């Protein structure tokens, strides 16, 4: 019983391996198909949602930075809620970037070993993904150390890769434990609060622990009190939140005002 998160430099390979692992372990597959449900749940345009998963905002695009962050927060919250069900193989949703500190999540990266692409094309694609992951989560998804296992299909057969992943998922360290489940619940709660706040504001960062939520934000002296009240009100309405603490930084000089 664990969560297996599969990422790859090629979307097709990522999906194909995830499908095979899910079938081999009789796990549920969580992939991009849930984006439609996410769009319905948060009443957003599914096209924009899919676009946000692969591009970064810029002055020349219709998607603003605030909207982009909100869309990503919606995906994150929805995925984390679904992962609470356990026995899931997740791919195509960048979960490896936000499911952190959860010991029963096995993070795997598959390298396609695709000869048809030139070195330059491969490098461009990696740089694009690196840029996206840095902008979205301040994490470099190409960094090896963030994965438990990286398998290069250049010489390793996909069937062998599936066998290795299913074998690893069976290890004791990837079994669900009360603490690891609590970590995941905390992440899911923080993500729900994030969605509630990002709908109307920016510069928000949320942490949750046992129903207590800490929100960090930026505001000028004049807006500070109002912003704190709004955050407390919005976050307090999210299911599972028992206590809200707000930390405000001055948005000009960066001085913490408590």
């Amino acid at each position, binding site marked *: 019983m664990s969560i297996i998160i599969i990422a790859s430099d090629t979307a097709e390979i990522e999906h194909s391996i995830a499908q095979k692992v899910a079938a081999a372990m009789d796990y549920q597959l969580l992939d991009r198909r849930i984006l439609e449900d996410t769009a319905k749940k948060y009443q957003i345009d599914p096209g924009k949602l899919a676009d946000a998963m692969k591009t970064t905002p810029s002055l020349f695009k219709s998607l603003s930075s605030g909207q982009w962050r909100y869309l990503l927060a919606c995906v994150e919250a929805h995925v984390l809620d679904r992962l609470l069900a356990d026995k899931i193989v997740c791919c195509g949703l960048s979960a490896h970037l936000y499911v952190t500190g959860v010991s029963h999540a096995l993070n795997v990266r598959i390298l396609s070993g695709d000869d048809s692409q030139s070195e330059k094309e491969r490098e461009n694609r990696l740089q694009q993904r690196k840029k996206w992951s840095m902008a979205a989560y301040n994490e470099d998804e190409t960094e*090896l*150390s963030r994965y438990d296992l990286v398998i*290069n299909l*250049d010489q*390793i057969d996909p069937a062998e890769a599936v066998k290795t992943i299913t*074998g690893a998922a069976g290890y004791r*360290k990837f079994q669900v434990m009360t603490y690891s489940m609590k970590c995941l619940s905390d992440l899911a709660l923080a993500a729900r609060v994030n969605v509630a706040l990002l709908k109307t504001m920016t510069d928000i960062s949320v942490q949750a622990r046992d129903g207590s939520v800490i929100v960090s934000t930026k505001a000028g002296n004049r807006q500070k009190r109002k912003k704190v009240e709004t955050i407390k009100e919005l976050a307090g309405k999210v299911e599972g939140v028992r206590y809200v603490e707000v930390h405000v930084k001055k948005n000009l000089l960066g001085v913490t005002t408590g």
Partner: protein
Amino acid sequence: MCIITISRGSYSMGKAVAQQVAQRLNYQLISREVLLDACSRFNISEIKLEKAIHDAPGILERYRHSKQSYIAYIRSSLMERIADDNVVYHGLAGHLLLKGIGHVLKVRINADMEKRIRIVMERDQIPADAARQRIQEDDNQRRKWTHSLYGQDPMDASLYDLTICIDKLSVDHAVDFICQAAATDGFKSTEKNLQKAKDMAVACRVKAALVDEFPHIGVTCEYGNVLIYIKGRDPMNAKLSKKLAHVREATAGIFHVETHAGSELPADAV
């Protein structure tokens, strides 16, 4: 039947993994032996060689090319050692030195930074900050080294077939995965692979013999036919011809030698 290279950061338990893999598969375990071979074959002090494979080249060394020479010696010695197959090599840069040979399983072992820090703290009795700094300096040095000599980042996943993080996964798990992968068809030593290794060993021997005087040459070998690639336009200068005649006499496995001047070095040239 294959060759396994295990690359790792310092204090990442790669050595333990290599030892257990070699034990389980009954393979020969090599690391330092390659250095010692190179020292005796090419008459160089061990300290110089060790420094060459540890530190990134300084500005002067970039012009003296001494590091290229040392690397050529080490590569040649490593090629001789792996000729018999069934080897686990956990010395430096195995994944780069043996690049191009089909039955080499290239493994990278990473460990959680905090775990590495704890190992250094316990071993050297130093505080966490000093341990962190030491590890980071070591990692940086390694990055610079690989970049300056091979133009690649050692943390580039595409250099390896398998990368395992020793954190949630243990040394035993890593050993399981490596042994499992080594048994697959992709890493079987076919006739073609063995011939390629043999040819590469010849190319490395030739390169090692020439590198001191001709640091910019590239060497390839196919079924004993050796091609020397020279960047300049004067292929048959007297010095090189004389040297080549000597190398041909002294090196086993060469049928024919040809020189190509003024062309780009092929990607598989050593």
